[in-house]
């Protein structure tokens, strides 16, 4: 079991100040995985499904 409990959240709070700045967040690298196995809910369309179909608005 990973640290997904209250204890974990407390640890997060202690590390709160260590969060990166916006410029660092913008350097995110996207890990490309099989899009047919990727499921997402799109904020614009509300469609939830395989990423490929969601992107096409199907």
């Amino acid at each position, binding site marked *: *079991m*990973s*640290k*997904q*409990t*209250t*204890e*974990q*959240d*407390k*640890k*997060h*709070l202690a*590390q709160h100040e260590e*969060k*990166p700045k*916006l410029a*660092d*967040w*913008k*350097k*995110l*690298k*996207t*890990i490309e*995985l*099989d899009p047919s*196995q*990727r*499921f*997402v*809910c*799109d*904020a*614009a*369309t*509300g*469609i*939830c*499904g395989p*990423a490929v179909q*969601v992107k096409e608005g199907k």
Partner: protein
Amino acid sequence: MKITIWADFVCPFCMIGQSHLDQALETFEHKDDVEIEYMSFLLMPEAQYDPKKSYAETLSSLKRMQLAQTNAMLSQVEQMAKSAGLAIDFAAAKLCSTLAAHRVFQYAKEEGKGYKYFKRFYQAHFADGELLSDVDAVVRLAEEVGLEGDRVRDIFLSNEYRDKMEEDFRLAREIGVQGVPFFVFNYKYAISGAQPVDAFRQVLQQVWEEEQIN
């Protein structure tokens, strides 16, 4: 390792993705060094619960989708949830705005109970038929995860924690989150969408190894 997840309580693939990640973590050698933080995201801020409409009808009218398309989508979601060992009951679920529940989530996070709160609210929405825009329901659920009910009620009925919630939205926009779930590993590696368990295993290992080199 830090995993940051943008999600909404009413996003089925967020709950399914969390379950897949949980399964991947079970066999991950360094699972005790993994920390998860949820971030607020509003998938349907304009949603309003209508007791006269089914979940599919509410979603269809909200997103201007054909009812048949919505039903097919929900059926697919139910199948995927079942495969992940999760219960989803769209006959009981109540689609609504989660805005106030997210403000309370920010308070829960501050109190060290954000992760537990998020998981409870997934189940409350998809399996228990709870109305997450109802103050009494949110207070009861928040108490279940150890929050103080009167304080939760005050937050729900005010505009408290809106700034913190909007910070999460702002950051999501800045880094290009267009849908959820959205996972970020160690503030560096992003994955959009729920992935199969094996994909999460692969990513956990890959990120861990890359971080050891860097």
